[in-house]
């Protein structure tokens, strides 16, 4: 039973990773950029949710929507100011800029409000535990899982059933050809950043409810792990990010369940290096030959 309990915890944690990983994978798929600032967008989302609840006194869903909207705007701003001028620059220049943006968001946040952590209000979601076949599942984690799943289904709908989703897929396939076909590539890239960042914002609010403690540097580790999840599933592949996130969450919970909780953060990076060595395209990816 202990094992199933850990599995349930792992899936809740994994759904948070999956939500962040979706943003990474979408952005990477479309502009081939590791958006290091993504974890910090997640942090901002968490704080927007926190302030919405404590200062405006709204409930869970309005807070979630507010955080998603704020993060979408932030994501587009980051893209327009920092990444767009570097569209044709070297990979190293873009990566260094992304690191710079990440540090900037973190330390501006610390500058504005200090580095002290904040405790999320607990009574946002209905409490109580549900017993299922001898396993105690908190209704909170079911709620979290439900919200994440709903968001992922919504994303699938956007990407596969709407016009902007079609444009995203076209640009990620071949930006030049898409431009020739009359697709506004810049707007499509902005839309991708908006959607990805909104998901990260939602993940931030969910994370706050699940772990109660939030602070300005909280985005770093979940951000990196979500990247690991995206690589694990195959970067650029949306279902891959979901599966990778869930898998990583479950593995981490199992590792802590076995009594190695201090090694938990290390395991994610070991998985990353192993995946990169043995299956660099990820679990769902196909190996693409390099063109000269």
């Amino acid at each position, binding site marked *: 039973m202990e094992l199933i309990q850990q599995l349930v915890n792992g899936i809740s944690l994994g759904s948070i990773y999956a939500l962040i990983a979706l943003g990474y994978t979408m952005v990477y798929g479309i502009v081939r950029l590791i958006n290091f600032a993504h974890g910090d967008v997640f942090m901002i989302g968490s704080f927007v949710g926190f302030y919405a609840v404590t200062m405006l006194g709204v409930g869970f869903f309005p807070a979630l929507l507010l955080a998603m909207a704020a993060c979408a705007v932030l994501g587009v701003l980051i893209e327009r100011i*920092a990444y767009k001028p570097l569209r044709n*620059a070297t990979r190293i*220049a873009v990566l260094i800029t992304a690191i710079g943006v990440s540090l900037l968001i973190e330390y501006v946040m610390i500058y504005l409000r200090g580095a002290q952590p904040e405790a999320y209000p607990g009574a946002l979601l209905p409490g109580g535990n549900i017993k299922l076949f001898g396993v105690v599942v908190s209704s909170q984690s079911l709620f979290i899982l439900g919200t994440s799943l709903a968001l992922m289904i919504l994303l699938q709908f956007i990407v596969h059933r709407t016009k902007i989703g079609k444009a995203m897929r076209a640009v990620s396939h071949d930006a030049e050809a898409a431009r020739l076909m009359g697709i506004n590539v810049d707007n499509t890239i902005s839309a991708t950043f908006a959607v990805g960042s909104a998901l990260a914002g939602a993940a931030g609010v969910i994370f706050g409810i699940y772990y109660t403690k939030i602070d300005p540097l909280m985005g770093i580790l979940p951000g990196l792990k979500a*990247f690991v999840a995206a690589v694990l599933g195959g970067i650029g592949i949306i279902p891959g990010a979901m599966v990778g996130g869930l898998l990583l969450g479950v593995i981490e919970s199992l590792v802590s369940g076995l009594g190695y909780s201090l090694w938990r*953060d290390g395991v994610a990076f070991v998985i990353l290096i192993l995946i*990169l060595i043995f299956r660099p395209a990820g679990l769902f990816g196909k190996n693409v030959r390099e063109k000269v």
Partner: protein
Amino acid sequence: MATWKRTRGFWVSIILVFAFFAVVQWLIASGMLNIFYVNTLFFMAINVILAVSLHLIIGITGQFSIGHAGFFAVGAYASAIMTMKLQLPFAVGIAAAGVAAALAGLLIGVPSLRLKGDYLAIATLGFGEIVRIALLNIDYVGGASGMTVTHMTTWPWVFACLLATIVVIANFTNSTHGRACISIREDEIAADAMGINTTYYKVAAFAIGSFFAGIAGALYAHHFYIIQPSNFGFLKSFDILIFVVLGGLGSLSGAVVAAVLLTVVSTFLQNYPETRMIIYSLVLILVMLYRPKGLMGTKELTSLFKWRKAAQGGMNHDNKNTVA
């Protein structure tokens, strides 16, 4: 006299270097530099070693590594174990630090055979984190509370290590091997097609760069009395990265100047850590937006002097197209 003309630069630099060493040694011995300035000076030298060693990996070989603090940590702990646990002399500690870090460099260099660009960056970042988490969990080295280390770092040691780092890496860059590394930076596929063993040179650059990062770690550990895993997080890696980026990707003297300048800046901003990080991040973004090659580009400081250029002819890679 022709020999004198050719070797003039060499002898002048040797005299300048030893004069600098003697002056600082005299200032420290006579107590004219107080402890604050000595600390800053040592920290400056350690940062220069780190910057130059990362410069070899990123600037010369073009391998984007952002886990340099990991090698730094390996060196610091390896040397501390040698001197504190095994009671061996400091020299052995320094050597062990270099060797241990170089082995770690080989370890991370091997996956780098298959990885490029972003993936290598994230793998090295992961490696740095693995080192930190491992140190956090090993009780032999004190876990989170760290290790206490006696103070052994003196100016002659710091200076000797600094000089060795710069001389080795500058000579490596100007050798056949260095040319091969530069060709990998410029275009790896073309270099491979020209018969350069890219794998070998990438791993070699990693090993040499991490060797010197390890030595910097030994100096650091024996100067600051205590080492903790939290000193070696990826913020430290980013600190080192910004030296190299600001100085110019591919400029050794640029890395040195940037490391010295930024150490001074961060000493003055010690009481305002957020401001320091905000400035650092803005500098990173603005330099990349407006001057993506860094302040010095691939130019060296020496190429600013005309007579050096004339004397060295084609030897100096001072123009933009490094490998023509």
